């Protein structure tokens, strides 16, 4: 409603009248805008650290430019084996997350939608949401209790039944499985909410029409529900692609250990270790900037592709 009014008024009203009438709406906007400014835009001024020789005590405006026209730290990063490993790990873990983690909530929403028994549906839904509210540190503590080679419950069971200990957390390939698996487990329930909402918005007449045409459950799912979900899926996919080089800090950090570091070190933890702990702020700002730029490129590309394919995109 608000949107309609403003578009109408845009043409007719002079600025003073318009502002007088709607200033409350802009006042409401002020707080979130300040938030964005303080925590997202002002910090961007410090991007220049990537091109300068950082000092912990100097003001950033007075720092001397780094060598190679300021690109010293970018060159250093790309010559560093550790950074390249972190880049590789970030990409592969995120791709795995995307391939396995992205369809999971869609499938879950589709299945849930087919359940007729309302109460059961709600219970399942609530149980599936719950892990989302656990922090990664807690999830990892649970994982340790369950999967540790000596003290883990699952491994104790396996040993009691005469099996061999499975190195869920201490062998790189197994670790990746555990990491991705727990990631999917933690988030699929929560992420399905969006899809359930979208499904609820699909016109019931379409289903009736499909029934009249003789479509069964699977046909209806395929020809009605999924196409109805398509815009949502695409928007979320674009946003996920924008994050292909990004990753939260707490999940990989909580899950890392020295035995799996060669597959577990990702850019965010690398930046923390080398930058914040190792005091190489310029190097890691450069890495962070690179990460963001690639993220934006992916986002733009995915959006362009979506529009090209006749979908709406996110803008």
């Amino acid at each position, binding site marked *: 409603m608000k949107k309609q009014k403003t578009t109408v008024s845009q043409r007719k009203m002079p600025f003073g009248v318009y502002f007088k009438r709607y200033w409350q709406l802009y006042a409401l906007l002020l707080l979130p805008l300040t938030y964005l400014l303080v925590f997202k835009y002002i910090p961007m001024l410090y991007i220049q650290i990537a091109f300068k020789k950082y000092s*912990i*005590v100097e003001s950033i405006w007075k720092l001397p430019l780094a060598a190679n026209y300021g690109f010293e730290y970018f060159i250093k990063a790309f010559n560093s084996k550790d950074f390249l490993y972190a880049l590789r790990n970030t990409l592969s873990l995120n791709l795995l997350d995307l391939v396995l983690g992205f369809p999971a909530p869609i499938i879950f929403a589709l299945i849930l939608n087919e359940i007729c028994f309302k109460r059961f549906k709600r219970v399942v839904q609530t149980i599936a949401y719950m892990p989302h509210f656990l922090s990664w540190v807690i999830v990892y503590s649970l994982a340790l209790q369950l999967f540790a080679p000596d003290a883990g419950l699952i491994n104790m069971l396996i040993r009691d039944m005469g099996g061999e200990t499975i190195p869920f957390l201490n062998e790189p390939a197994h670790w990746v499985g555990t990491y991705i698996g727990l990631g999917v487990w933690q988030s699929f329930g929560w992420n399905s909410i969006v899809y359930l909402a979208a499904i609820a918005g699909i016109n019931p007449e379409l289903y009736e029409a499909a029934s009249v045409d003789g479509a069964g459950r699977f046909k209806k799912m395929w020809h009605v529900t999924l196409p109805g979900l398509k815009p949502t899926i695409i928007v979320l996919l674009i946003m996920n692609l924008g994050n292909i080089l990004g990753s939260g800090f707490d999940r990989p950090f909580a899950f890392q250990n020295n035995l799996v570091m060669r597959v577990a070190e990702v850019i965010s933890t690398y930046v923390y270790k080398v930058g*914040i*702990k*190792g005091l190489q702020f310029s190097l890691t700002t450069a890495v962070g900037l690179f990460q963001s730029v690639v993220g934006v490129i992916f986002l733009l590309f995915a959006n362009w592709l979506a529009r090209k394919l006749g979908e709406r995109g996110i803008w």
Partner: protein
Amino acid sequence: MKKKILSILLACSMVFAMTACSSTETQGSADKSSGSGDKKSASELVDGKFAETRKIVVEVYDRGNDGGSDPTNNMYTEYIKKGMLEDHNVEVEFKAVPRWTEVEEINNLLAASDAPDVCVTYSYPTILTYAQMGGVLDLSQYVEDYKDDLPNLWNWLGESNIYWDQDPDKGTLWAIEAKLAVSNRVLTFVRQDWLDKLEMKAPTTKAEFEEMLIAFRDNAELLLGADASKMIPYSVSYDVGWRAATLIESFLDPDMSDKEFYVNGFDDRKLTQNGTKEAVKLLNKWYNMGLMWNDFALYGSGDTTEDSMMKAGYVGAFTHNWDYPWRNGEDSISANLKRQVGEDAKYVAIDCFEDSKGTYTKFVPGPIDRKVFFPITNKEPLASMLYLDWISDPEHIQYLQIGDEGVTHTVEANGAIATQAATGEAIMNSGMNIDYTITCNGLKFADENITNLSRALAYPGVDPDDVINAHNLANTDLRVGKNVNVGAIAAEEGIGDTLSSKRDIVYDNAVVAKEADFDKIWDDGVADYLASGGQAIMDEREEKWNAAFGDATQLP
């Protein structure tokens, strides 16, 4: 219209952002001018006191231990605050820094210009990095100019510790080294009651130690009953280089030259010393024989899982600080073991890793401990120096170490001081309040005789003979580190932490490798460590050694 308003808002925000930035800028320059222009003489003191009350902030470690008190506000900080105010008219405030993430925390505080006036860290390379960014006060002037006002500091630390880190060329002094009162470092501990049950003698060689571990493993049912599956004959943590230090040192050449030890010695866990590989190979063999804790690499720094297993009685042997089982009074490993397993259950110290000469050489560092430095934001260097002096006063060290008579200690007939388990307010957050006595680590009373008599009584509820035995073992065959001061090594700047975590990765992966893969994993790991900066450090160390000492390979 909407766009217009948006753009106005954006413009406003830009202006806001600019002003915000320029204000921090002026703040930064103000800090700096006051830092460099602060060269007041000590004459502003009357009877050791300032005319006007000064205020300083002092860093203190927060160990977050159970039953502890607020490290910035308890009866011991009150004692310090009161004393400093009375003696020097200086108000002291404490700032807690988490013990296990101290470096990150100080980085953040420095970057935010919010660092305490008196900072403490174990990592000299970190201080050096700050110093190269211009973030640290040069103390060389202060220790000389104020010498007359700092009698306790000079008496206790002496020239050697005060000037330990002085740059030989430029004369700059970025930090003062605290002093180790006792050089006891790391020992191996074993469950005496298990040895008794198995009718074994304490091992004195690696071979006997291995036999003992095998006996523990094979007799798990007898030793642990229903908990047999939890048996851990020998336990280390992710920090293998520290937690197997005596074993590693036994593989080094006890007669190695000072030069070799220095050149390969950037890593205090001895990763790059000659011989370390063989030591880790032995650990790897034990690991594959099922003699070690399988989960060790999964738990990080500060985790208490391993301690809990020792307390519960599942661990047969481990290597750690010389007094580790007795630390923390009622919550010590030894006290818990007694409660949970039985009166006779206890760990005793042993020397069982013989070196090539058949002795038990222990490479202990020089008598240095934590490093105290003043960040550039410190506007009260004199008051801060007076604080260091006050905290180095033997009387004050003694009080902080033992507290009040009748509450935290009793005095024996011969004058020896016996520490009592404290309760409530009087509980110390760190053993003997080491976190407050920042210039001193280890038992040190005003009277040296009393110190020696009291050593065995410093751990309430522990058999004094066990403590004396450990103290004696920790002092057998010492090779004390010397101060190789050849100036700052540029290659070490800012890389310490990266290399330490690489080192742990090399150690951990080598220990758990399949026996056939061990050589490859170790060699690859060390090669990566060297390529990441380790080799550059070794080269520069060698070069600087040659420049300073020529052909000599031994220091006087």
